[in-house]
C-alpha cells in the first residue's frame, strides 16, 4: 500500500528536509520498515530498543491515534496519510 507520511521538523534531517515522504506498507510496522530502508536512522527515532513506539512519539493514521487502534499493527490502507508528532501538551 502506498501511503504518505508527514515528518516533524526534528526528523527532517533524515528526509533531506522533506516535510512529507511516500512509503509502502500494509501496517504501521511495515511502513516504518520501508521508511528505514529509504531514510536510514528514522526507525531508531520512532521505536525503542524493544521495538515498541517510543512513549513520546504519537503516530496518527488518517487522523486516528494508533494507540486507540492496533499500535504498530494498525492497518495502513492505500493512500493513507500518516503523521508523526512529538507529544506536547498544555493545561495544568
Amino acid at each position: 500500500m502506498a501511503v504518505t507520511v508527514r515528518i516533524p521538523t526534528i526528523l527532517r534531517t533524515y528526509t533531506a528536509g522533506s516535510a512529507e515522504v511516500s512509503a509502502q506498507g500494509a501496517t504501521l510496522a511495515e511502513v516504518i520498515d520501508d521508511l528505514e530502508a529509504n531514510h536510514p536512522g528514522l526507525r531508531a527515532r520512532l521505536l525503542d530498543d524493544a521495538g515498541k513506539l517510543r512513549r513520546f512519539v504519537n503516530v496518527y493514521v488518517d487522523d486516528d491515534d494508533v494507540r486507540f487502534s492496533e499500535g504498530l499493527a494498525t492497518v495502513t490502507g492505500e493512500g493513507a496519510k500518516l503523521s508523526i508528532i512529538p507529544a506536547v501538551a498544555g493545561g495544568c
Partner: protein
Amino acid sequence: MSTIELDAPELASSFGPAVALSCRECGARVPLGPQYVCVECFGPLEIAYDFTAPGRAPITRELIESGPASIWRYAPLLPVPADVASKPNLNPGWTRLVRAENLGRELGLRSLHIKDDSGNPTHSFKDRVVAIALEAARTFGFTTLSCSSTGNLAGAVGAAAARAGLDSCVFIPAGLETGKIVMAGVYEGELIAIDGTYDEVNRFCSELIGDEAGEGWGFVNVNLRPYYAEGSKTLAYEIAEQLGWRLPEQIVIPVASGSQLTKIDKGFKELIALGLVEDAPYRIFGAQADGCSPVAAAFRDGHDVVQPVRPDTIAKSLAIGNPADGPYVLDIARRTGGAVESVSDKEVVEAIRLLARTEGVFAEPAGGVTVGVLRKLVETGKLDPSAETVVINSGDGLKTLDAVAGAGLTATIPPSLAAFRSARS
C-alpha cells in the same frame, strides 16, 4: 550523553541561571533555543540550571523577599534575565494563600490552605507560565505569540501579547465555555476555534510549527514549552515562602498534561537544594476528573505508562486525553507517597459549591476537581488529616458559570417587609 556549552554570552545572560536544555528521558543536552523535543529519543526537553556558577549572587531568602510582589521575585531561579520585571508584561503571581479553616473543619483537616491562582491578571495560573514564555519569545525574536488552549491559556496569551506589543494567534477547540472565549477574544488577537478536541488542536499546532505559516511564531506550549513550563515552579516557591519558608506536608494539584505537578515538585527540590527550606518530606497528590483520568487510572492499575483517553468532562481545562507528563506524575506520586485520584463531574460541582460556601472562593471546575479529590482522599484515608495540606485552585469560576448554573436567587419578592418575612418563613 552529550553536553554542548553555550558559546554566546549575551544569550546566556538572557536566560539567567539556565545553562542548557536537557532531555528528561535520556539526559542529552542541547543549547538553549526554541526546541522542545530531544533529537535523540523524542523525549521532552527541560531547562537545566547552574544556580551556583562563579560570579552569580547567592540566592537567599532576603534577596527574594526584597523583590517585587510577583513571580519576578524568583527571577534568580527562572530562565529569565535579571531585568525581566522592567519589560512590559502582566507581572503575575504572588497570589494569596488562603488559610481555609472552614473547609478544613468541614473535611476534618487540621491545617488546610488554598493557593488561589484565580487572582492572577487573567484569572488563572496560566499567566505565570506565559510570562516566562513571553520573555523567551522576545529573546528568540518571535513576533507572534501563539498556543493551543483549553481556554485559560488563550486569555493569558492574548493579554500578554497585547501588553508586550506582539501579535497573537490562539487556537482553541470549538465548544469551549462562552466566558473563556470572550475573555480570550477581548484582546483582539486572532482567536481560531478548531472543530476537534484539545488533543487535536495540539496536534494541529505541532504540524503548523513545521510549516511556513507558523514561521517566526512562538507557540508558548510547543516550541517555547521548556521555558513556559518553568513558570509553574513559582507556585512551589510562593507556597513555601507564604508558609514561612516551609514546604507543606501534603499538596493536591490538578493534572491535565501533568506539567504543573512535575514543576511544583521540581520547585520544592530546588528550594531544598539551595537551603532555602528545611529538607522535610512532602507528599504530592494529583487530581483529575473521571471523564478524563488517564493518569489516575494508570496510578490505580500500577502502570508506569499512560493510555490516552477521549475526554468527556465539564472540567475542560483538564480535558487532555494524552498527557505528555503523565509518566512523570506517576513517578512523583509514587516517590513521595502520594496518589493520583479522580472524581465525577457531580462531585466537581459539589466541590465548587463547598469551596464557595465555606471559604468564599469561587473556583472553575479544575478547582472543583482538586477540592473534590481532596475530600475523596480524606474519606478514603489516603491523605493524613493531621498533616499540613495545600490545595491548588488554578482558575476563576467566573469563566465557567455554566458549571454551577443552578445557583442563584433565593426568592423574588415585591419591595415590602411583609413579603420579605413571608419569603423567609
